[in-house]
């Protein structure tokens, strides 16, 4: 039987080992890895192009619109609020984001814990109900809420925006926290109960501290979704203008460079937060591993 199609070779004299055989990867696999690596680099670069563009154009010495490059300046960064209404819109987005994040994170975390640890009827229906907001087009969600507020005679404004944001953030919080709960050994909570912990004590001293990284991830995700949301917000904002709405309205006549400044600043801060979290976690893990024994 021809064996020319096999792509693994075993060094002579070495018995087959269980597990990935890393050191003896033949040339073809290594080349494929390189090809994939180059591709991934290009793909990631492609993903980052608009970000870089936005960042660069935040330094454009622009007049009305920010399309043609006129010169490099720091002016936009130092006078961010010069563009009329932009800082109000930004603050609105921040406030809405914080409130919506807190509410969605609390509600979503409770659901995630219930899903993972407890049996209850209507389990699949609940999962479906949580999945649908993530899967529904924003247009439908926005129009639906707006129609409901309309029929109830509720005035659209801050309140309705926050209600809308919490609604679509809950599902994402559940997914993120659920992943973290899944990695939590249930024996830990059992040990807590075995060691005379009341249900409240077990939650605060064991479950919550161990869930915290997941909860914080979920909160960060929720805030990002809320801050950047346009479609649902647009349908339910009434007289309030959030930052994305500001951009949309300005799109037709020309977006001031300060919008690029704010967006870039938010991007940098968020990325830094995420990177620092990951790097410190990795450093701590490394330090712990070194001290074993």
């Amino acid at each position: 039987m021809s064996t020319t199609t096999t792509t693994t070779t075993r060094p002579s004299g070495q018995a087959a080992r269980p597990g990935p055989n890393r050191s003896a990867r033949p040339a073809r696999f290594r080349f494929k890895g390189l090809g994939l690596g180059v591709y991934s680099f290009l793909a990631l670069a492609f993903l980052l192009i608009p970000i870089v563009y936005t960042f660069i154009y935040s330094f454009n010495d622009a007049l009305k619109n920010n399309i043609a490059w006129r010169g490099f300046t720091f002016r936009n960064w130092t006078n961010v609020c010069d563009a009329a209404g932009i800082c109000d819109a930004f603050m609105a987005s921040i406030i809405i984001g914080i409130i919506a994040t807190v509410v969605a994170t609390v509600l979503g975390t409770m659901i995630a814990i219930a899903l993972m640890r407890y049996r209850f009827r209507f389990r699949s229906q609940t999962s479906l109900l949580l999945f649908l907001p993530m899967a529904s087009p924003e247009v439908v969600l926005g129009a639906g809420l707006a129609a409901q507020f309309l029929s109830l005679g509720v005035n659209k404004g801050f309140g309705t925006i926050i209600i809308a944001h919490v609604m679509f953030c809950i599902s994402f919080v559940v997914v993120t926290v659920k992943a973290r709960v899944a990695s939590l050994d249930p024996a830990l909570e059992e040990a807590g109960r075995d060691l005379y912990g009341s249900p409240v004590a077990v939650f605060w001293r064991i479950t919550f501290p161990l869930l915290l990284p997941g909860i914080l991830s979920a909160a960060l995700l929720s805030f990002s979704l809320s801050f950047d949301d346009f479609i649902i917000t647009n349908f339910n904002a009434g007289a309030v203008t959030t930052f994305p709405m500001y951009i949309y309205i300005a799109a037709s006549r020309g977006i001031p460079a300060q919008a690029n400044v704010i967006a870039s600043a938010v991007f940098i801060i968020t990325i830094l937060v995420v990177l620092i979290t990951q790097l410190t976690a990795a450093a701590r893990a490394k330090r712990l591993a070194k001290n074993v024994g």
Partner: protein
Amino acid sequence: MALAAFSTAAPPTQDQEPAQRRRSGIALVLLLPGVLYLVLFFLTPLVSLIITSFQTPVVDGDIGQYQAAFQWQNYTDAIAEYWPQIIRSFVYAIIATAAALVISYPLAYFIGVKVRKYPLVQNLLMTLVIAPFFISFLLRTLAWKQLLSDDSWFTSSLKALSILPPDAHVTGTAFSVIFGLTYNFIPFMTLPLYSTLERLDVRYLEAGSDLYASAWTTFRKITIPLSMPGIVSGTLLTFIPAAGDYINASQDFLGGADTSMIGNVIETNFLVLQNYPTAAAMSVVLMAVILVIVGVYVKRSGTEDLL
């Protein structure tokens, strides 16, 4: 699923055995607030939409005033008028989803399988993948509008190389809309793919090789079937929002005169024309198609993997 990759925790281990889950009243207390919230502000609005879609204008009333009715003709009228947009939305969405899948899969494979030795690098690379989320969606799309505009170096070079005729546009075409959709949904496709591929046991691939499969056969018969849950999640999470998107297709962004999608129709009718019944009817149509797709999926694979 999708956003498991977002958390900074270790990759999730198996779900708790159903027998080990406790039956308790606490579950209800934990669930009730959130579930009630969603029933109030997700389900009820959908019902509102359905009700609104059957309404008729108030005779002699102002624009935007409607009364309860059962005018199912709203649906037939809307579909008759807007069927090009309906078809167009699904065509664009399918192409964008397929493109996103083709682009994302190798990327997810590289990060999830090839870089497994370095978990820190994996996390950093995935952070780069979701980095676009952190900058405004509108600005991202506008950036592409500028980068693909008539006087950008990209378009100019294409014209100089005679790939494009001198008076052609890149923006405002179906191509730019699909391009924008694909770009914006690549992270949605990559995350679930990564999640699944990250947990792929490489030894299956090695067993394939050991049993005389070429690299391509191994990929086709082992890797793809094993990563199917991720492919399905990613497809659902991409196709559905893409079908309903209207920013990319909007004329202020990457769209043109004849690229409008269902989303644009709904937006225009709702916010500009105040023609609520038509907007609602179109929303219901869109939602119904999506529910059918999700229903097919749930029937095949159940609800446990949804979240």
